[in-house]
Each structure stands twice: as C-alpha cells, then as structure tokens.
C-alpha cells in the first residue's frame, strides 16, 4: 500500500496558538473555507475558568452594564446548541462516552453555535459574551490525555476571541465556594477518570490538573488573567474597566455619541 501523503505540514500547538500568530476575529487554524470572515464589526468576549468560579454571575453583570451603555449583546455557552444539547445530556447520564466521543460531541455543539449564533451576531455588530469558549474543552480533554495537536487542529475552525478573560482561582477557595453553593458534581469532580470513590479527593485532584491546563494555555492564547478570589463587585469592576478600554477603541464604540436625554414626566 502506498504511504499516505498529506499535502499540508503537520499542524502543531505552536502553529495554532503561540508565538503571536493569533489574530482576534480570525480563524485559529484551517477554518471554514465556505465561510470566509470579512471585517465583521462584532466582538467576541470570552469568559473562561473552571466550574464554580463565578463565570455566569460576572457575565450577567457585564451584559447588564453593556446594554445600559447601548451595546447589543448576545450570550452563548457550552452545550447550549439546539442541535446537540439533548444528545449531550443523554450521553452524560448514560455513561457510554469515551474521551474521544466526549470531545467530538462538544466540538459539534461548538460548531453549531459558531455558525448559527456567533458568526451571525458578529456580522450584525453584537458583542458576543461567551460563557466558556474552546479552552475549557481543551483543558478537560488535555487532562484526559487526548493528543494536544489533534485537539488544536480539531478546533482550528474556531474564531479567536477579541478578549479572553480567565477567572483564576486556587483549589482551596474553589472547594469552599462550590460546597457552599451547590455541592460537587460527578463530571466536575472528574469521577469518570476513576481515580477513586471519594468525590472530595477526586474533585481536588481533578480540578488541580484542570487549573494547571488552563495555566499552561494562558500564554499560548493570550488570556487576560483575573484573580477570581476577590469579591464579585471588585472583580466586575476590573472586568468592566478592561472591556471599556477595549471597546472604546473599537469600531462599535458608543463613546462620543451624544446620550439621548430621558426626561421623566
């Protein structure tokens, strides 16, 4: 049999992320040839971080603040695609997935949201707030031993966000926060990795590994790291300051527009 030839050089993690090759608003890798990206006015702001770190609270507050200023906001988040949500829920509860099928289900969900929600919103000039982006998927799969170059090629169709905020936390603070909020969950504790029956030990060890994965991606993908141990409002203020500075210099800025007078009758 003939040796398989490939007409491209092997993509590596370096091609995908590191060394300043990332261009916000452009595809990370091979991209979607049938959907070339023009200079769309919209912006993607991704909030990343592990389970229970407070992403959704921050996004809710940020959205409110952006909308008051007059920015159109669209939210998107993991497993929320109409196409894949029921399948992912079912597969998680039936416990028949292995690491590859797990990764591929999530990638399908992301692709559906990218083409149906994110790209149309970018074209229309919205600010897309993404509760997690591809990085949580990369971190989870990385911890489970999935080939890193393969993962990066797989997500080569993702668009590099304009801003990625990484909510950073240490495992001790995280544990106390998760326990007082809602308790530990099977998947968030990495119980599928079968490191033992004790959910506390499993959670600690799994989240430690996840945090290391996020940490190692921080430079590769240019995360803006925010200390998530701070109170909600302090963290939010930090977030708003950075978002404001970014949007002020963008083509969708509301700065300089004359605010309409609202006179109460």
């Amino acid at each position, binding site marked *: 049999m003939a040796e398989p030839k490939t007409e491209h050089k092997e993509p*590596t993690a370096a091609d995908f992320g590191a060394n300043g090759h990332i261009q916000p608003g452009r595809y990370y890798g091979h991209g979607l040839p049938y959907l070339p990206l023009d200079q769309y006015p919209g912006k993607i702001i991704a909030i990343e971080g592990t389970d229970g770190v407070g992403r959704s609270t921050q996004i809710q507050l940020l959205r409110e603040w952006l909308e008051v200023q007059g920015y159109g906001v669209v939210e998107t988040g993991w497993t929320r695609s109409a196409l894949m949500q029921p*399948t992912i829920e079912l597969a998680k509860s039936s416990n028949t997935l*292995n690491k590859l099928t797990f990764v591929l289900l999530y990638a399908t969900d992301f692709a559906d949201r990218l*083409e149906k929600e994110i790209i149309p919103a970018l074209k229309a000039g919205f600010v897309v707030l993404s509760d997690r982006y591809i990085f949580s998927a990369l971190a989870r799969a990385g911890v489970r031993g999935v080939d890193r170059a*393969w993962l990066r090629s797989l997500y080569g169709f993702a668009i590099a966000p304009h801003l990625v905020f990484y909510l950073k936390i240490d495992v001790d603070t995280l544990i106390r926060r998760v326990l007082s909020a809602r308790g530990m969950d099977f998947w968030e504790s990495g119980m599928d990795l079968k490191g033992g029956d004790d959910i506390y030990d499993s959670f600690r060890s799994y989240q430690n590994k996840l945090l290391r994965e996020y940490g190692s991606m921080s430079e590769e993908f240019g995360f803006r790291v925010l200390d998530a141990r701070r109170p909600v409002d302090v963290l939010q203020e930090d977030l708003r300051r950075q978002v404001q500075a970014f949007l002020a210099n963008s083509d969708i800025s509301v700065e300089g527009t004359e605010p309409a007078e609202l006179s109460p009758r």
Partner: protein
Amino acid sequence: MLNNLSSPHEYPGKLFVVEGIDGSGKTTQLALLAKWLSAAGLRVFVTEWNSSALVKAATKMGKRKNSLTPTTFSLLHATDFADRQLYNIVPPLKAGMIVLADRYAYTAFARDVARGVDRAWVRDLYSFAVRPDLALYFRVPIDVSLDRLMARRVKLKFYEAGLDMGWSQNAQESFRLFQGKVLDEYDRLVDEFGLSVVDASLSITDQQQTVRNLVSRQLERPTLEAVNQ
C-alpha cells in the same frame, strides 16, 4: 498528531472496508463477501456508517430540519465513527475477528470536502481511525449510480443528493453536481491512501470475484489461526 490511519494496526483481526458513492453497489458486494467469509468458518462483524445510537437523535433532528452545516454534518459523522470504533471495530479486531465496514473515514474525506470543509482538517480529524487492511473503492460513473438508485427508489434523499448545498432545486441535477465532486475527491484518495479500485460498472459476479481475490490475499495463516482458536 495521531498517525493511526497512516500506520498498520497490530490487532489479530482484519479490517476490510468498502467505499463508493450511493448506488455504486458496495453494500451488495459487502453482503456477498460476508456470506463467503462466514461460510468458510470465519467470524465476521459488519459495521455501517452513521449507525451508532449515540448521535442518531441529533443527526435525525438536524436532517429533518435541514439545519446541518457542512461542519456539523462532518463532526456528527466523526462522533458516530469514534463511537463505533470504540464499541464495534476495535473489540472484534482484538478478538481476532474480521470486521467489514460499509463506508469508512474515506467517505468523510470525499463527501465533507465536496461540501466545502477543509481537506487537511478532515484528515486530521480522522487521524485516530484504525487503518484498514484493505479498502475497496467501487468506482462507478454517475449515470450508472443514478439509474440504479432511480430503479429502486422514488425520491432521492436530501443530503444524498447534496440539496443542502443549494446548487440546484432539481434533485437529479443536484445529485449529479454533488456526487461529481464526491467522485473527484475519491479519485484523490486512491493514491493518497492506497485504495483498491473495483470497476463497479461490471456485473455483480465479476466484481465479487475481484473482491474475493483481493480479500483472500489478506487472509494469510496468522489470521486464520487466530480466528479458528
């Protein structure tokens, strides 16, 4: 990057796959091959493209609403394949059985690229796939396949005819355009992955003779011993 698809597997079993466009007759040929192997006392396991329970609901819903994009179409099939490789392909290969696959990763390389996904991306995507011991490609002109399909069906299926691409409102015309591109992609794969070409416009019996000759060359003693244990 993973290199499974480019290096031979080390399982005691054998993996034979059939490829070709709709109406090429590959499923008929696979069934005859399975009969022959079983009659010879070999243990045969057949697996079909897009048949896992895992993504059935999502694929069905996506197809019904015509809401699949080239990329989600591609990823759903890759998920289906990964699931079947886990449950239906690797275990029988480890048990020394003969696995017959009706369509394989090459189907994705041909179809998904015809729909517009990146050629290198879809190859990387399937780099976890076990390399077949033999991949038979049933090459057929579009007119022949279309005649065969029309002879037994009233209506061409939406995705099979590539109607999702919006190239033509007419199903037959769309089928010609879409499957023409699929054929072009298959032709690239012949050399790239060493597919064995079978002339699918020949008679069923002539084709089967070719198939059995090619397969018997792959069934040397080690496999037969493993299977007969």
